């Protein structure tokens, strides 16, 4: 009898805390930190998070066509601004949750600075398509700043996203290329292969914006997630994955 009573009290208590669930659309480059953040968030608040990963362009198309996402963590700042203009978001909720960093990366050891770029001793240079990916735009800005754009452009291999750029370089099909720091960082340094972390002064910041979408209006779990994203704990996770916050 006492056990039953305890159970009932616990159930009521659970209802009291209003554990809710929220669906978050996440840009692919933020996959690893998001999984970590979601686990921490669920432990801390009791809410649950369902994360869907796709490129920002695809997520945009899905949101505009009725996908039930409540929060968007984009890979750029243009898409959330565009959705805001189209009244698909909750006004005033947009902010930059992280800034990405690019790495000049090679599967071979020994790359520490931009000198192999200058030497030009490579056939293919992989980068995410600048038309689609802010990380690709940053790569072009870096090459322009180093006055190497004309020489390197002829060797461009455009990847559809960061994951494919990584794949081209990891398989050796492109000797050099651009990936996100978050893809190659392991315990604070570059894990596999070798790379040069491009100084942030060589390109415009790669701002990744978050926004509360219209579908998330009034869901406490969606609000709580955006609040959690601004916490010191969340920022430490993002920093560990190679993002500037």
């Amino acid at each position, binding site marked *: 009898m006492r056990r039953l009573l305890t159970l009932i009290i616990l159930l009521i208590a659970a209802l009291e805390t209003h554990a809710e669930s929220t669906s978050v659309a996440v840009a692919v480059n933020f996959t690893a930190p998001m999984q970590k953040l979601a686990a921490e968030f669920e432990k801390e608040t009791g809410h649950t998070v369902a994360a869907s990963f796709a*490129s920002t*362009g*695809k997520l*945009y*198309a899905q949101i505009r066509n009725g996908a039930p996402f409540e929060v968007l963590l984009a890979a750029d700042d243009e*898409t959330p601004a*565009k959705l805001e203009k189209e009244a698909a978001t909750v006004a005033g909720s947009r902010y930059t949750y992280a800034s990405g960093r690019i790495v000049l990366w090679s599967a071979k050891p020994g790359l520490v600075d931009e000198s192999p770029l200058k030497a030009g001793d490579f*056939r*293919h240079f*992989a980068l995410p*398509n600048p*038309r*689609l990916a802010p990380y690709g735009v940053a790569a072009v800005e870096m090459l322009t700043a180093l006055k190497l754009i004309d020489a390197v452009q002829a060797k*461009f*291999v*455009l*990847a*559809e996203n960061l994951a*494919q750029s990584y*794949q*081209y370089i990891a*398989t*050796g*099909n*492109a000797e050099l290329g651009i990936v996100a720091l978050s893809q190659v960082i392991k315990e604070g340094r570059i894990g596999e292969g070798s790379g040069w972390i491009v100084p942030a002064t060589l390109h415009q910041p790669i701002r990744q914006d978050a926004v509360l979408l219209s579908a998330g209006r009034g869901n406490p779990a969606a609000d709580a997630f955006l609040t959690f994203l601004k916490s010191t704990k969340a920022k430490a996770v993002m920093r560990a994955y190679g993002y500037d916050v």
Partner: protein
Amino acid sequence: MSDGDLTAILLTLRLASLTTVILLVLCTPLAWWLARTASRWKAPIGAVVALPLVLPPTVLGFYLLVTLGPQGPVGQITQSLGLGVLPFSFAGLVVASVLYSLPFVVQPLQQAFAAIGNGPLEAAATLRASPLDTFVHVVLPLARPGFITAAILGFAHTVGEFGVVLMIGGNIPNKTRVISVQIYDHVEAMDYAAAHWLSGGLVLFSFLVLLALYALNPAARGNYRG
């Protein structure tokens, strides 16, 4: 339509034509063998030929990237022959497309050859026709519908391929950026108007190709999916 779209269309047509010609040359003996042989290798080789029907294009693309790449076995061979490596080149796309569209050419040919049966061949032999003579003057005319089906399906399937070329192409204008990749870029870049033009064109093209296939060759109706 932009210059980029036009370049992509011309490149796609070039790729699909070349792929179809190579496939018809390669697949005619292969399909003939598959249709006539009693070898115990028939089943395993038939299964390998059909693999691209079943595998997701990303699997095919990924393995091509790895095997054709500088560290891969095929990549080692092409490099030692002084050909360089195939990914990110038009030649690489042709190789990938040939593999990807192989079953769409082999299978109609194989069925057409099998449908001829022994009768006409034996009749030709009694008239002292050489095997080559028989093949050119008896088999090829009888298998004509099979060749038409195979050529149209091989061509159309190559035009429609996406996952493989995306993986090993590297999206280089005038070299590897085909229509499907161009459409993908338009959609990803949220340029939906441009995406509609090309996509609508591709729908119309595909419909016309299939219409031609069924009009020319009623026997193919319902047998294949492009």
